[in-house]
């Protein structure tokens, strides 16, 4: 890694947004491959993700780093689009929503943002989503992963009903379902028969990386 590369990774990791964007812009102006710049951003995000999991930084820092990555991605995008056959590939499709009866959406919105900046094609179908709406959207969007969000304990029944509706519709094979929300844990996962649960957005991204191999 060159000194410039290290500076960019460090600027993102230390939440110096202006410095990070200026460094990335200078690198691109000097003819640096935009994919290299994006890769450096991902390295920095991975560092921050690890810090977050170890309790060394918190959600605001994680989200701010994501915003920096998005800003730098916006600088790279026109340079990538100008290349023949070099359109950035999405890693996979994720359908996400807050289950019926629950209106909480802050966690879902953060997961949606983090998946988006990590290269996933995310369709967010909102809050208070009935099971049949999940099925309908799945038929149209054809996701590899479905994320069910719910904060209330009452949402656990809705999660279970949604998984059952997906199974009844014949859409469960090859699909991975993850659940998340304030009080979700392994007991809730077993009850809902989802494939995995996540305590935060970093886990959601890790699960998608594990499940969807590019």
């Amino acid at each position, binding site marked *: 890694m060159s000194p410039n590369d290290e500076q960019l990774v460090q600027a993102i990791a230390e939440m110096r947004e202006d410095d990070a964007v200026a460094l990335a812009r200078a690198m691109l102006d000097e003819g640096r491959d935009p994919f290299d710049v994006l890769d450096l951003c991902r390295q920095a995000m991975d560092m921050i993700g690890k810090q977050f999991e170890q309790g060394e930084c918190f959600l*605001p820092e994680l989200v701010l780093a994501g915003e920096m990555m998005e800003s730098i991605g916006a600088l790279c995008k026109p340079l990538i689009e100008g290349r023949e056959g070099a359109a950035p590939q999405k890693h996979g499709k994720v359908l996400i929503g807050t289950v019926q*009866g629950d*209106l909480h959406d802050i966690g879902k919105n953060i997961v949606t943002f983090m998946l988006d900046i990590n290269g996933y094609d995310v369709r967010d179908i909102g809050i*208070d989503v009935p099971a049949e709406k999940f099925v309908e959207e799945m038929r149209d969007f054809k996701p590899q992963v479905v994320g069910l969000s719910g904060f209330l304990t009452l949402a656990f029944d809705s999660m279970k009903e949604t998984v059952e509706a997906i199974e009844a519709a014949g859409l469960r094979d090859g699909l991975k379902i993850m659940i998340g929300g304030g009080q979700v844990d392994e007991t809730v996962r077993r009850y809902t028969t989802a494939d995995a649960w996540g305590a935060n957005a970093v886990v959601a991204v890790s699960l998608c990386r594990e499940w969807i191999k590019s």
Partner: protein
Amino acid sequence: MVTAASETPTSNRAEPLCTALRRGMPRESAAAALARRQALAVSESETLIRPVAAHRVLPARAADGETLEADGFTLQVPAFAPDAGKINAVAAAACTIGPDLERRVRELFTAHRPSVALALDRLGTQALFRLSDQTLAAIRREAKGQGLVLGAQANPGDAGIGFEQQAAVLALAGAEASGIALTRLGMLSPEKSVSFLVALGPDLKGHVYSGRCARCPARERCPLR
């Protein structure tokens, strides 16, 4: 001794709430502090916090353990069981900061400004907790005037009182004009709303309020602690 429902208006001004929010959060990075200040500026310039609180102090009877009777309602409140025989009144409260802040949070997420959205959401939560604390203080003053001591506090959905008691707590609080409504499953709307009951009696030992965190089911994962 409480013989009829009584209520004392709580201050419904946003300014005291926002003043408290300027202090910042524990373990806050410089970048997060900047997002918080931006969120505070958005909140104040657009008057997104519109606090409303309602509470009533009512005669009550906790005849057998977990069963509480007040104003024609019968509620199951396990949190009050240890003091059952000594409870002769209950305070019911409902507080909200209104729907504007959470609408703005959604707009900020849609506009790809999640750091400010997140900071604004946290600001709203802090403001709501502050309003709840102010309401509890008003209840304490009112109870003292009637020779009553505060016992345990119970928020529907937390340990000590079931979520299904939410409608009864709102009715007891006299929250009709507060703008707080219940969803089909009993969730409070606007989201940034809270309701609670407090046991009252002349001979209660006096509950030691160990803070909101001690009762919060999400405390193990909370980044604010």
